[in-house]
């Protein structure tokens, strides 16, 4: 068993860390574009009686 598996990590988590590390080591011109893919946005729209109430501004999550 690998040390990271022993510590309770799975391959998805391993892969995430490896991908992030690779992005950090890119030449500047490629890095900005690559790091954009690390962020994801969620837009939440609550509905009541069949109608949307309000739309919250997108919140960033890592």
């Amino acid at each position, binding site marked *: 068993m690998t040390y990271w598996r022993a510590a309770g990590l799975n391959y998805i988590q391993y*892969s995430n860390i490896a991908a992030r*590390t690779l992005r950090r080591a*890119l030449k500047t011109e490629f890095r900005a574009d690559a790091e954009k893919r690390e962020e994801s946005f969620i837009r939440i729209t609550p509905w009541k009686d069949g109608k949307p109430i309000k739309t919250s501004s997108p919140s960033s999550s890592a």
Partner: protein
Amino acid sequence: MASLMKSSRMAARLVTSATRVARRGYADQMDFTLASGNKVFYTNQNVKQVSSRMAARLVTSATRLARRGYADQMDFTLASGNKVFYTNQNVKQVDVPSFSGAFGILPNHVPTLAILKPGVITVYETEGVSQKIFVSSGTITVNDDSSVQIIAEEAHPVDSLDASAARDVLSKAQSELSSASSETAKAEAQIAVEVAEALVAAAS
């Protein structure tokens, strides 16, 4: 996995020697060699039959391939979250780093599944033309029909790597490792150190 690879390599050798014999027209003869790290069991001895599930499958797939005429062809696909590098392109050879060791894939390779280790994939497109691509992680699939798929989370040509940025990442990861308190944080930092070491080696 390592012992599986070893046995499959041996099985591949068996297939090769069987094919050669068949070509010579010695249809009823088989030069059989069985060797391991500790002992040589047979050396070019004529035997009736050798059975192992892996060998049987190999023979079947080799026959099928030969019939289709794909013997020297390999449909290679390499894609990552950021880019598609190859789509069913015929290439000569692909060298990949995996958790079960680095290995080269030629046309007619044994069907294999493996997990990518952070490192450099070398694709030999045609005679003298090769491309080096750094992959973070992902999977390798070698199919029965000689097609190969590599799916990576992040992949970039080695030329896109910055040597000094890689060294920065490495030293940062090392300091994170030494200051990590929990078991998980330590493992996460250790992964980053490993990847960064591969990056430094590839970029320099």
